[in-house]
């Protein structure tokens, strides 16, 4: 966590002034311009997890999609191990990048092919990316790594598994291609509370034991604290605060982070109807935080807070 580490280990992923503008033309009504991302700068250290926290529509999923090249940046760069991913134009370079970076989606019910067994899902990934290790033993080894029953799981179809188990298969698939960076977009938000933590624990273990880097996209600041060394908070396409998770969550300095932090349900604090103070504050903070960021103040090493 010391600044020294950051110097000795180059960032596995770096976003530089990333901007994305969508032009939306609905069937009815006028076309409009949506500024999904505005000058986003982020970095992820190898073997660590960066949590990207924000409400729906804040642009956090757009960041994830740009990293896996679903969207191209309007301006700015995505650097993977120091190289601009826009430069990966040849087939071998593209293949290598796709192998290194994998995505795990929010919905475990629609992200597996219902017509194929778990064995098929994993073997296909193995054959494409590690042809020498595509045998049954490799499938079993990977299933064990994600804590699934290697004896029975290969012959099962996705519908025979629970949401948590399916999400494990998705992580297994990322392991099968030997990914070094996993972009996990709300991987636990559709799971039951009672199994959410076990999937987080799996991610934590993969990070610690396999040295995987994880970009963890979430709206749940409590799970960010559990998993990630660093946290960046996004609002309306801008990063409003970033730094070590303990600092960002423990002593939030930006108004929006404080609001988000205060809104996390705490079973020990009963809610009352009140006088609408929270709603008023929420309105003020949202208005203020939507304005363009003028500058960032460095509160502590690596702890940046936006000014609007």
């Amino acid at each position, binding site marked *: 966590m010391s600044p020294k580490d950051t110097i000795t280990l180059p960032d596995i992923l770096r976003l530089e002034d990333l901007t994305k503008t969508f032009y939306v033309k609905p069937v009815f009504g006028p076309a409009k311009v949506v500024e999904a991302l505005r000058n986003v700068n982020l970095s992820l250290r190898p073997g660590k997890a960066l949590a990207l926290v924000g*409400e*729906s529509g804040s642009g956090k999923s757009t960041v994830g999609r740009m990293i896996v090249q679903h969207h191209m940046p309007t301006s700015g760069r995505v650097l993977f191990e120091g190289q601009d991913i826009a430069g990966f134009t040849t087939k071998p370079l593209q293949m290598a990048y796709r192998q290194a970076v994998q995505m795990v989606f929010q919905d475990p019910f629609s992200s597996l092919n219902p017509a194929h067994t778990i064995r098929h899902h994993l073997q296909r990934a193995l054959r494409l990316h590690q042809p020498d290790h595509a045998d049954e033993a490799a499938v079993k080894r990977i299933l064990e790594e994600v804590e699934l029953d290697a004896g029975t799981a290969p012959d099962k179809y996705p519908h025979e598994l629970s949401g948590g188990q399916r999400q494990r298969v998705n992580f297994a698939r990322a392991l099968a291609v030997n990914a070094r960076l996993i972009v996990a977009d709300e991987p636990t938000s559709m799971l*039951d*509370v*009672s*199994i*959410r*933590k*076990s999937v*987080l624990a799996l991610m934590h273990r993969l990070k610690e034991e396999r040295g995987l880097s994880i970009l963890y996209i979430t*709206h*749940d*600041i*409590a*799970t960010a*604290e*559990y998993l990630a060394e660093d946290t960046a908070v996004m609002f309306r396409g801008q990063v409003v605060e970033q730094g070590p998770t*303990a600092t960002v*969550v*423990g*002593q*939030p300095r930006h*108004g929006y982070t*404080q*609001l*988000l*932090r*205060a*809104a*996390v*349900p*705490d*079973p*020990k*604090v*009963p*809610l*009352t*109807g*009140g006088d*609408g103070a*929270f*709603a008023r*504050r*929420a309105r003020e*903070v949202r208005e203020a935080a939507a304005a363009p960021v003028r500058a960032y103040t460095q509160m502590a090493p690596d702890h940046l807070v936006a000014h609007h």
Partner: protein
Amino acid sequence: MSQDQSPLMQVQDLRIEYLTAGAPFRAVRDVSFDINRNEVLGLAGESGCGKSTIAYGLMRLHKPPALIRQGQILFEGRDVLAFDDAALRAWRWSEVSMVFQSAMNSLNPVMTVLGQFSDMLNAHQKTARARVIIRTAEMLEMVGIPAERMHAYPHQLSGGMRQRVALALALTLRPKLIIMDEPTTALDVVVQREILQEVLRLRSELGFSVLFITHDLALMAQISDRIGIMKEGEIVEIGDTNQIVNAPQHDYTRTLWEAMPVLEQAEASESEAAHVP
């Protein structure tokens, strides 16, 4: 508001089964509980534990293959299961209403907000258009939406606003009980907090009971007076919120608490966050 101290709703030995090709699946297994006047009763459990089935069953909104096999539902002493269709229609919404999990699906996409209020008001009592407009404006203001948005279609509103509209619709006929089935699951925490505080404020203003269903125990503990914990169709533990939070008796309740990642730095920053300029 009645000063009556007897429970608003009494559920006794309720059993709901889903017919399947094989043996019927018992989703709700002889469950008994009361909902008191002016109380928020929470019902928590994992998906598939039967909590939503209970919610639908209480309003008799369950559809085949779900069947109420036995038990009794008493609302202010009246036997809900004995209502005929007309009585049921009159009872629903005017005395018991419901806010569904996803407001996106519970509002009619091809009708303006005003249209939905008009539909609902006219279903219970023929209402003049001018009166409908006044009533809609009142209700929207009450949940914090500018009255002019009544002419908007659901897709023109944000998720939080749609959930507020659903809440306003549920409150319009001044029901005594509102059943909320995961009302804020699709919303982010800030909006969730705003809406739930609104519900609590309206409750102290208007006086109604809430049956609050969610899988988020922490949230439930924040707003409920009493909490019931469900597992596999049974209520394994029911008690005051304080007791369920601080001294859970049943192993399963403890397991549920342990399964949740809870913010460790909760107290430290809560006080600091209160002093936001």
